[in-house]
């Protein structure tokens, strides 16, 4: 009875919001949860659910998984879109989204880390992916070990197969005591060592602020045989012996070419079955996201009783297109392109800077920094990132805007760029500045824009009108 009432209330709210031209991605679920707090477990029962959580790569990985599954005959996907990843957004998705019953339906749900702890038990997913854990807006999320414990308690309430990152010590430790259902993905350890030895990375004046340096149980510094980026790598604790687990899905790669460029070739090794792939969404970090998605889809197909599962998953991964605000290249006139890279935390900004400094088509770089509640009120995090080792490879044209443009301007300046070489403007002139950047960009080049969350929403809303770019909730 309650459930029926909650369902119809949610649908009514959604109908009205859509008439008003709003996205309606969370409010219907919020209303439903008010009426029936147990609505999520009731709606989730009997459904095949895959959850994706972790600091970075949630949206990209869930998007890849969704696109891959949708490409299979006989399968359909329902997912929560555009970052509606709290309980309210997930309830909205479970209640309001519908597909034909004739096909096998898979729910792919991107889930916020803290929300995951609360609703994982109710969702009881068949597969649960944990991408990575990096410091996020600490004024909102609190300590990293706390976030890890939240995810662990969420997992404890499920019977899900776990797809977890072996290179992230915090994430890998989620598999302790859950060996029977833990499936590890990550970089091939040999491959990582080869790349470290062959292409040593450039060093800046100061190391980036690092996470998870010490084994939380022994208080002893982790040692690494090799690293990929941040605290990700082939770690081991010299005291208790805890180490990066062996992968079931391993990325074999060679940094002779940069993964920042389209068509980068790499392979995934699944128990000796090695398949070559082309990186559809560029960036070193997307090697992890692609591997996580291939792992999740392969495991889903296995659970569904299919054959040639790994082969099918690999083939499907080549058909994926980028998600909203994530590595999406928007074509403009004169063969120019615009690429918006959402940056929400130090690890994300570090990856994006590295990406832009290696992208062959990067002719302009624009930063947009806001400090609203959804961004984190504290802008200090931009100083945790190592700009200094990448600045020499930045595009010549740099533009800065956002409500906190002064802070970002100084950040870029302190990395070694003269202020005279940086154009800047307040947020209300951001679109004009972007248009200027586009007009000054050479033919065939790409303007890379790195906004944080509310800056992206603001800019995106304006671009819909000014440049005729599609609406994000469609």
């Amino acid at each position, binding site marked *: 009875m309650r459930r029926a009432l909650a369902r119809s209330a949610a649908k009514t709210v959604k109908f009205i919001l859509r008439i008003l031209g709003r996205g309606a991605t969370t409010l219907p679920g919020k209303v439903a949860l008010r009426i029936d707090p147990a609505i999520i477990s009731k709606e989730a029962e009997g459904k095949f659910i895959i959850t994706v959580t972790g600091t970075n790569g949630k949206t990209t990985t869930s998007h890849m998984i969704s696109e891959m599954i949708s490409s299979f005959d006989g399968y359909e996907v329902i997912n929560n879109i555009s970052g509606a990843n709290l309980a309210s957004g997930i309830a909205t998705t479970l209640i309001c989204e519908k597909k034909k019953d004739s096909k096998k339906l898979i729910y792919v749900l991107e889930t916020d880390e803290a929300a995951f702890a609360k609703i994982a038990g109710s969702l009881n997913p068949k597969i649960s992916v944990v991408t990575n854990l990096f410091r996020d807006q600490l004024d909102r999320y609190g300590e990293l070990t706390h976030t890890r414990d939240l995810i662990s308690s969420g997992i404890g309430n499920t019977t899900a197969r776990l797809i977890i990152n072996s290179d992230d010590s915090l994430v890998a430790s989620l598999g302790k005591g859950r060996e029977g259902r833990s499936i590890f993905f990550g970089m091939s350890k040999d491959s990582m060592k080869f790349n470290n030895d062959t292409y040593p990375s450039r060093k800046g004046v100061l190391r980036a*602020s690092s996470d998870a340096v*010490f084994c939380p149980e022994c208080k002893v*510094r982790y040692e690494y045989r090799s690293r990929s980026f941040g605290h990700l790598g082939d770690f081991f604790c010299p005291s208790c012996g805890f180490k990066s687990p062996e992968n079931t899905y391993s990325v074999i790669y060679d940094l002779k070419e940069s993964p920042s460029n389209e068509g980068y070739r790499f392979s995934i090794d699944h128990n000796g079955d090695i398949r070559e792939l082309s990186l559809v969404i560029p960036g070193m970090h997307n090697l992890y996201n692609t591997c996580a998605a291939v792992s999740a889809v392969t495991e889903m197909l296995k659970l569904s009783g299919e054959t040639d599962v790994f082969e099918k998953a690999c083939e499907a991964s080549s058909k994926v297109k980028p998600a909203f605000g994530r590595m999406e290249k928007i074509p403009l006139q004169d063969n120019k392109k615009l690429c918006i890279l959402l940056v929400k935390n130090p690890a994300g900004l570090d990856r994006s800077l590295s990406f832009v400094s290696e992208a062959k088509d990067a002719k302009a770089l624009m930063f947009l920094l806001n400090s609203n509640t959804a961004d984190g*009120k*504290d802008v*200090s995090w931009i*100083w945790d990132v190592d700009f200094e080792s990448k600045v020499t490879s930045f595009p010549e044209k740099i533009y800065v805007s956002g409500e906190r443009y002064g*802070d970002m301007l*100084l950040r870029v300046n302190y990395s070694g760029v003269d*202020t005279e070489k940086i154009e800047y403007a307040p947020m209300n002139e951001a679109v004009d500045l972007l248009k200027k950047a586009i007009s000054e960009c050479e033919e065939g080049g790409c303007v890379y824009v790195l906004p944080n969350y509310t800056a992206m929403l603001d800019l995106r809303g304006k671009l819909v009108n000014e440049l005729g770019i599609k609406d994000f909730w469609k």
Partner: protein
Amino acid sequence: MDNVSLNIGHFYPDLLNLYGDRGNVLALYTRAKRRGIDVNIREITIGDTLDPSSVDIAFLGGGQDNEQNILKDDLVRSKGPVIKEMIESGKVFLCICGGYQMLGRYYLEHNGNRLECLGAIDIYTEGKKERFIQDTIYEIELSDGKKVKVAGFENHSGRTYLGDTVKPFMKVIRGAGNNGEDGYEGARYKNCFCTYSHGSFLPKNAAVTDLLLKTALRNKYGEDYELPYLSSEAEDLALRQALEYLNG
């Protein structure tokens, strides 16, 4: 003067590196380097021996509880006596948030548990449940009597109280400051400067960066040493814009 050099000792950079504390080291480095000073950044962490003569400015940031617990023994037992000696002899220290608290006498957790700290400066801290999390503006009086505004960001649950030998570092214009009661922010004892301000603290506040540089280099090269002039246009613009944003 030729070949002026500055050694920055970055304490526990792998453990105390919250909220952009790294930006403070970068600010000291940048404003010294741009003046033609040779700058050396030395990382000093757990297990390292501390040679006071190798450090002209010491920096301690803040860390997450888990990280601070890891280093506490090393700080209090191993390096403690040398750090105390350095502070007493007038060495320049900048300590932010957790670094500030750990130099004090003790930290009283809100459950009544008392954590003994280094006791290098006469301050103590009481933990409360409610955190102060907000943008801040302070006022600081420089050695020439000039008062300047300083912008930052605070994020702490500790309330810090100063003993008689310690002076407040800044006056609160906006924010809670040391304890939300007395209108002051941070502490100064000899040349040990402490604050709750992240932001990062130094980059936008070039006057404070220069105060630390000048003090450290006069320690090293004598009271006649003059810090060469350096424009602070980019820093001042960032400060002005931050103040406008906060007042807007």
